[in-house]
């Protein structure tokens, strides 16, 4: 029984993945398609063919990790070299199509083009019959259009078409029933002219203002004669510098990276953000650790019976969902009317002055990190072998000396890797920044995107999803890479200290 279930599950999953892979292939999502085909074959070989056990346990995790953790990281790398942003998300062909579609103008015809409706019996498809350019009759819909021979048509006495190829033309009261289908019909005629119904009787001819010449990759405005050519930023531009919208996603090489260095409007805020990212992480680990250590020393005292009570209360910041506690803090920090200002009878522009906003961020981060630091410091102090302390006492070391020469070095050595890991995490403390200050107060020279308390991750988020000048995924990805490098460098340093590598060997 369980065997049947297992087969059903395995083959069902493989089929599902294959179906998805095929759909991705149709939709031209190449990587996803390849990845899904590969996954299906790996699942098949691991669970059906192979006799080896480890793969059976690792495969689900590894596949999902690749798709949702590693692939996005590399995808950032790819997007960082494009100009992917609002107005630059289509492919070039799609963008040029869109330009042509958007620029349609009506074409004057001598007579109004009247149409009549034919319903094909077999497929219930709606066709329009009309007379266009001189004396030819045409039949067609969005899919196709063909010229009709006189012999295929039968006219009534008043010149109206009665039937086409034996199919009766619909009477006007019947036509209304198909109004939804008729409305959506666009008939493509020669030389880019399209016909669309404007009411239940007439068609309007229109034509794009631009013509596209693929061989020279050039758009020409047929009215003004102006020529547009692609620039290196994925957009059509005329000699006089006029841009056509939308643009397309283009590879722009290192420009996202170089522009943050060469463009002063981007460099200044980025440098400020980068500095604060590092300073903030450093300060919070230092303050948090010192605070935690001092508390651990004070409360790790054998003659104090209420130690456990204090410990329980001290870890409360860890137990409140941080998103909510930070939002409560943001309310408490409201200038003048906020609770903090009223308690201390001060009037501090907490969230509107750059320096006070930084102080507020540090206070909140201190609040949320000291419990952890207190816990690891307590652990480290308790782990100091008592013989060492006794030996120091016998040798006549003063309490201060015992602390600075024995306890402190031992504690620091134990917790150093943890501190580095905390530092790496503090680099990406998105919530504490974004929910408290929103990164603000905003710098006046940063196009409204960067602020005094912004760290890289919050700046990236704002560029990508909250941009004042549209969302810029390309630039955001380039900054993510900078963040990857920063986090990676610090973590690697910590890893070497941590010597967890030894554990692997």
């Amino acid at each position: 029984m369980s065997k049947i279930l297992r087969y059903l599950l395995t083959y069902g999953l493989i089929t599902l993945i294959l179906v998805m892979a095929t759909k991705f292939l149709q939709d031209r999502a190449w990587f996803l398609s390849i990845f899904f085909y590969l996954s299906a074959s790996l699942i098949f070989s691991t669970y059906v063919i192979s006799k080896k056990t480890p793969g059976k346990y690792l495969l689900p995790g590894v596949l999902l990790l690749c798709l949702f953790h590693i692939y996005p990281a590399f995808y950032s790398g790819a997007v960082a070299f494009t100009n992917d942003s609002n107005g630059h998300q289509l492919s070039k062909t799609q963008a040029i199509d869109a330009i042509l579609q958007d620029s349609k103008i009506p074409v004057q015809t001598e007579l109004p083009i009247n149409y009549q409706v034919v319903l094909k019996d077999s497929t219930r498809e709606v066709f329009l019959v009309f007379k266009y350019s001189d004396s030819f009759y045409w039949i067609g819909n969005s899919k196709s259009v063909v010229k009709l021979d006189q012999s295929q048509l039968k006219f009534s006495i008043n010149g109206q078409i009665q039937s086409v190829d034996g199919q009766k033309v619909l009477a006007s009261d019947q036509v209304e029933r198909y109004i939804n289908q008729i409305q959506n019909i666009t008939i493509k005629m020669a030389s880019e002219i399209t016909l669309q119904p404007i009411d239940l009787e007439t068609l309007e001819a229109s034509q794009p203002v631009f013509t596209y010449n693929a061989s020279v990759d050039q758009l020409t405005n047929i009215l003004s004669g102006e020529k547009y050519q692609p620039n290196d930023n994925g957009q059509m531009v005329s000699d006089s510098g006029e841009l056509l919208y939308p643009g397309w996603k283009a590879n722009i090489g290192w420009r996202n990276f170089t522009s943050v260095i060469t463009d002063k409007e981007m460099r200044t805020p980025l440098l400020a953000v980068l500095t604060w990212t590092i300073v903030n992480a450093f300060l919070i680990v230092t303050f948090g650790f010192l605070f935690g250590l001092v508390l651990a020393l004070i409360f790790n005292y054998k003659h104090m019976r209420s130690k456990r009570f204090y410990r329980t209360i001290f870890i409360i910041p860890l137990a409140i969902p941080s998103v909510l506690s930070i939002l409560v803090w943001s309310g408490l920090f409201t200038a003048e009317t906020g609770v903090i200002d009223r308690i201390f009878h001060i009037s501090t522009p907490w969230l509107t002055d750059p320096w006070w906003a930084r102080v507020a961020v540090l206070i909140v981060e201190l609040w949320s990190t000291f419990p952890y630091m207190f816990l690891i410091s307590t652990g480290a102090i308790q782990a100091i072998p008592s013989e060492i302390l006794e030996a120091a006492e016998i040798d006549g070391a003063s309490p201060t000396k015992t602390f600075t020469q024995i306890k402190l070095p031992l504690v620091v050595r134990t917790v150093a890797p943890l501190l580095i890991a905390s530092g790496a995490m503090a680099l990406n403390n998105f919530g504490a920044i974004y929910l408290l200050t929103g990164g603000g107060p905003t710098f006046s020279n940063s196009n409204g995107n960067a602020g005094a308390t912004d760290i890289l991750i919050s700046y990236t988020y704002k560029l990508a999803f909250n941009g004042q000048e549209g969302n810029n995924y390309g630039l955001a990805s380039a900054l993510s890479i900078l963040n990857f490098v920063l986090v990676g460098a610090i973590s690697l340093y910590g890893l070497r200290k941590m010597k967890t590598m030894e554990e692997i060997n």
Partner: protein
Amino acid sequence: MKIALLLDSKKFKFWMRKVLWRHLVGFVVVAFSVFPLIWMISGAFDVTGQISTQMLIPTHKGLDNFVQLFSNSSKPFLIWTRNSMVVAISASVMQVGIGALAAYTLSRHRFKGRKLTLSTILIVQMFPQLLAATSLFLIINTFGKSFMFLGLGHQLPLILVFGGSALGVNTWMLKSFFDTLPTEIDEAAKIDGADHFQIFRKIIVPLATPIFVVTFLLSFIGILNEYLITSVILGLDGNKMTVAVGLQQFIYGQYGKNWGPFTAGALLATIPVLTLFIFLQKHLVSGLVSGSTKG
């Protein structure tokens, strides 16, 4: 007479000198620790609902904020709670399940590529998913073009994104725990004819239940708390948000405007997590500390 004796006693003098100041420090730190919690509580029961008039003990007490919280149809707290639960529970189950499978084989079997897998996991762990939030957004957008239910604004892709990072979240922690379980039990079972999956299911899983509970809860709390990826993938549409993202909308932009219902909602969301944490303090704290030693 008695009091004088007491005050004069050695014990009391010692207490005054060595212990009293510790309690004073303790009092200040306790005040700091519970500061936002206290104001969250007082805000929730203050019917004026204004941050600017809020007192530690509200002058006008009542449940108006809770009524407002549950009757706001554009900010449906109950739906957010359901969304949060669906996402957090499914994703944590995925994280623990997938992590446990991988941790079991990494702990018990010796095979080619084991070291490589372990170091890869360690390196991946250093780069949290939120660093690539922009890419995740674009990738899920591509998913959605082919399969609606896997697109932006749906819970399934979010669950897969969180659940998919299982190896990068808790596998090391689970492996370290499995390593402490004696291998003699497995060997005995193997002699009795158990295959590898039976050993996992009947021996390892029951023995590791406590650590599963701890990892599940840590994952669960972590996901409830996630703001960036959640807001990016689900969007800021009224019915689709989670509690963490939704409650922010109450006070977004105009501070204090909806302070009352916000604190009421925050309190309701905090109580279960806080209770769990205090009850399972010992286990969760050891999990937090040991989890972090592994990155």
